[in-house]
């Protein structure tokens, strides 16, 4: 609270307070009366006999009440103001982050950040003047992986409070775009309206640990953004940000379990990492985590943090790098198993202390290569760990029924992946496909020959490094000769881009991935580059497991294992064609089976989800869900949340100078106390 006219109040106080107190010092003019003895009166009022012109000040309730009334009036006179989240007359949107990092328990009161955010939201709702009919009211939005309008614009405080209290914690990533997407139509309406009184204020209650999907600038024109930062900058957290298990290509029963830990504390930290197999601890390794650097460097390269821009200096914490360490366990496991990787540091955010993986039984993929003859590719597939590679000509392939390709016939086992070399099949196969110089028949997914005027040699300009297919793939030195022009449907995803357009793209149909590469591998230097083999390994693992049951390889399972991240959805194969399935876990999940598959809702909490019935085959009878997000595990709150550089300074996280005068409250308070003082006086003087 601050004052607009503090000196007026001080001067008035200097004049009136001594006056009031002196009135209590002065004696009354009293009527003389004779009594037989003052003995009893003196006993009744021991201190009435005063010979001095002033009497000793007594602890008088009336004096205190009058002083309080005077104090309230003086404060009102000094024109107190309160920082208002919202200009009077504006509409307010409260966006509450309920992502995983908001579960950090680092508030002074022992609350989590989400609980604190909810309290602040309730305070905002209380301070918002909802009484006026001309105002648009308050809207409450919660966001994590997705954003939800938990309460649309209303003036009903009871509804708003219930909506805020109803926001539950999740272990998902925080993404700001969906929330802004929900808010922007209202902002646009507010901007279009010339009347200032219907402006829109957006208060984002978050720790600033939010993901930005693309590089696109986000702007909310016409809205005033306030970022209320939650969390303590010094909060230390040790989190497992990546975990995978891989089987050795030569020796499939040998499993390498890999975990990466990050540490945000200012001091170096040692942690013991324990690996449990089916609940039994089998290995413990110590890992040294260096101190996190509170500098200007942005978070690790693999996970750029576009939403946060550090402030070079100032009271707020700046985001620095984290201290990280890697731990690897090697063990022999032939069959499937449940792996749990846990560290023993008791920190503010418990959800990232454990990573869970479902290790798949040792198996290698069966791949069908459809080619007119490409020995290079066949050897590459074989080297990528495929159990068997069968080669078919395009004509032979067209002769196979699609079901036979998937399930096998006549004693021949089905295929997990089909690789097309310079051939576009007539029908969409029922397994995942990888096409070089061609595409599967999906609407809008084609490869056309290179334009005549296109340069003969082209390099790869950029690629999606975080996509599971492109993980550890480096295309810097790869030269291509006349790559085809790849068109990608709207729901497709471009994985690599060259001068002439997309080079590698992925579309998903019926839970299956179909990847197309726009050029012939033999027309490039890629096969000579080590990254080609990495790409093939990634592709076969991702596509093969996808064929096995819609496993999202983006979960980071590492090929030999299955796990999901919060915020993902899973499609699982079910033995029955119809019905429903259910999973018991931190949250109850259920889904309807359609065509032998069931799509589960988005995972909200980490943990194991165990299937109810027995119509789910291993490994889908138990789903492992992890956070595994470096940005969420770095619980140091971001100093600034920058929403769109183009929006200018009005969008910055500056705390606005909006102030609301609150002197009427004090005036009313003084009036109320005056009434109380009058009642007390009359009570006393009544004989």
């Amino acid at each position, binding site marked *: 609270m601050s004052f607009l006219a503090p000196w007026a109040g001080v001067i008035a106080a200097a004049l009136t307070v001594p006056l009031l107190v002196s009135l209590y010092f002065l*004696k*009354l*003019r*009293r*009527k*003389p*009366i*004779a*009594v*037989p*003895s*003052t*003995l*009893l*009166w*003196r*006993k*009744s*009022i021991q201190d*009435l*006999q*005063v010979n001095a012109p002033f009497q000793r000040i007594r602890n008088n309730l009336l004096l205190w009440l009058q002083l309080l009334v005077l104090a309230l009036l003086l404060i009102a006179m000094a024109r107190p103001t309160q920082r208002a989240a919202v200009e009077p007359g504006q509409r307010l949107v409260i966006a509450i982050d309920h992502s995983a990092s908001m579960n950090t328990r680092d508030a002074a009161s022992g609350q989590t950040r989400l609980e604190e955010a909810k309290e602040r939201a309730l305070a905002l709702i209380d301070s918002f003047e909802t009484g006026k009919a001309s105002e648009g009211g308050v809207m409450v939005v919660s966001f994590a992986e997705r954003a939800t309008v938990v309460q649309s614009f209303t003036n009903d405080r009871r509804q708003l409070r219930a909506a805020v209290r109803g926001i539950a914690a999740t272990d998902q990533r925080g993404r700001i775009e969906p929330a802004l997407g929900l808010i922007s139509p209202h902002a646009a309406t507010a901007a279009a309206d010339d009347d200032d009184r219907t402006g829109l204020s957006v208060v984002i209650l978050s720790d600033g640990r939010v993901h930005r999907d693309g590089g696109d600038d986000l702007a909310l024109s016409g809205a005033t953004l306030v970022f209320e930062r939650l969390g303590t900058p010094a909060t230390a957290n040790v989190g497992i940000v990546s975990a995978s298990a891989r089987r050795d290509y030569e020796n499939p029963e040998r499993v390498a379990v890999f975990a990466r830990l990050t540490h945000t504390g200012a001091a170096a930290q040692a942690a013991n990492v324990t690996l449990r197999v089916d609940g039994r601890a089998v290995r413990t390794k110590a890992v040294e985590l260096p101190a996190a650097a509170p500098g200007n460097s942005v978070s690790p390269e693999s996970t750029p943090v576009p939403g946060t821009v550090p402030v070079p200096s100032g009271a707020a914490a700046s985001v620095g790098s984290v201290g990280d360490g890697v731990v690897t366990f090697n063990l022999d496991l032939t069959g499937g198993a449940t792996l749990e990787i846990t560290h023993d540091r008791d920190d503010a955010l418990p959800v990232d202390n454990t990573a869970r993986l479902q290790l798949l039984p040792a198996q290698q993929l069966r791949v069908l290569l459809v080619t007119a003859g490409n020995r290079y590719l066949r050897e590459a597939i074989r080297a990528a760990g495929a159990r068997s590679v069968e080669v078919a000509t395009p004509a032979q392939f067209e002769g196979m029924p699609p079901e036979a390709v998937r399930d096998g016939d006549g004693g021949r086992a089905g295929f997990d992946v089909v690789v097309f070399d310079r051939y576009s099949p007539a029908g969409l196969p029922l397994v995942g496909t990888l096409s070089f110089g061609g595409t599967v028949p999906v609407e809008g997914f084609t490869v056309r020959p290179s334009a005549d005027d296109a340069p003969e040699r082209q390099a790869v300009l950029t690629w999606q490094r975080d996509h599971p297919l492109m993980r550890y793939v480096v295309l810097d030195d790869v030269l291509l000769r006349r790559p085809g022009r790849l068109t990608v449907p709207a729901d497709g995803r471009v994985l690599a881009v060259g001068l002439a357009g997309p080079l590698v793209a992925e579309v998903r149909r019926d839970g299956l991935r179909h990847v197309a590469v726009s050029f012939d591998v033999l027309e490039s230097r890629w096969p000579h580059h080590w990254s080609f083999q990495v790409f093939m390994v990634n592709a076969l693992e991702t596509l093969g497991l996808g064929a096995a049951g819609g496993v999202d390889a983006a979960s980071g399972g590492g090929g030999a294992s299955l796990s999901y991240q919060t915020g993902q959805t899973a499609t699982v194969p079910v033995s029955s064609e119809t019905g429903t399935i259910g999973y018991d876990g931190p949250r109850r999940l259920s889904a309807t089976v359609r065509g032998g598959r069931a799509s589960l809702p988005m995972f909200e909490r980490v943990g194991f989800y165990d299937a109810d019935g027995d119509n789910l085959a291993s490994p889908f009878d138990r789903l492992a869900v992890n956070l595994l997000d470096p940005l969420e595990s770095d619980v140091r709150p971001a100093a600034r949340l920058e929403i769109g550089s183009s929006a200018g300074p009005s969008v910055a996280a500056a705390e606005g100078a909006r102030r609301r005068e609150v002197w009427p409250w004090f005036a009313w308070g003084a009036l109320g106390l005056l009434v109380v003082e009058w009642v007390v006086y009359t*009570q*006393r*003087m*009544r*004989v």
Partner: protein
Amino acid sequence: MANSSTLQPDTLLTPEFMHQLDRLDVRSRKMLRGTVQGERRSKKRGASVEFADYRNYVVGDDLRRIDWNLYARLDKLFLRLFMEEEDLSVSLVLDSTASMDYGEPRKLTYAKQMTAALGYIALTHYNRLNLYSFTDTVTGTAEGMRGRRPIPRMVDWLNQQQPVPGGGNLAAVCKRLAMLNQRPGVVVLISDFFDKGDLAAALRYLAGDRYDVYAIQLLSPQEVDPTKGGVVGDLKLTDLEDGDVAEVSISAALLKKYRANLEAYCQHVRETCTKRGLSYMTATTDVAVELVVLKYLRERGLLG
């Protein structure tokens, strides 16, 4: 209590009241030694007609008291003893300090009426009556009255008693009384007991076997409820005796406190008297004197 007094403030006794008083006598709880023969039973054996006891004859006894009939039967000499009857000394002590000049009716007038009634009773029964008035010391005395003849003198003396300005000093008064009145007897102390000194120390002089003391505390209705006396508002209260000033703002809380203090003070006086073996009673001046004398003092055992 009904204000049924037939006594006017300027009248001490009326014939009807005196007629009622004739039937009463002053009683003492103690058997006190008198000076001359009277109507009171004495501890001494004496010459009354009432037989008391026998005792063995010893040489030198009065031969007239030997019971010769007994000697004839037992052949031993016994003396017959008779009860002795003596007079009773009754001292009435009247407070004439300024504080008694207060109330409606005035406490001093009420005290005079009560003294006149008690004195009348004492004189009609041939008791020895002493009257004392006091402020800070004993200011007036009328001693040695006996029989009906001094009644006008008693009334004259009472009429002469006026409130005297100045503070009281009960301790000095009691000490002086004990020195003046050395004869055993009944002492009736009529006062408001508004004394700023040590009450227990004062009453110590009257305690003991010598006196049978009755302390009668007089209060006016205006003292019991100050609002009846116009004590309302912001006031400067002046003590009638010593001119002490107390400034008060009358409020319900203060009045409540005052009443509690008054009750506590009366209780203090009562306890002090009881501890010293004194009889205590309180009377407010709105109760008729006749009622107090004929009923309450009889109940207390002073009259009978």
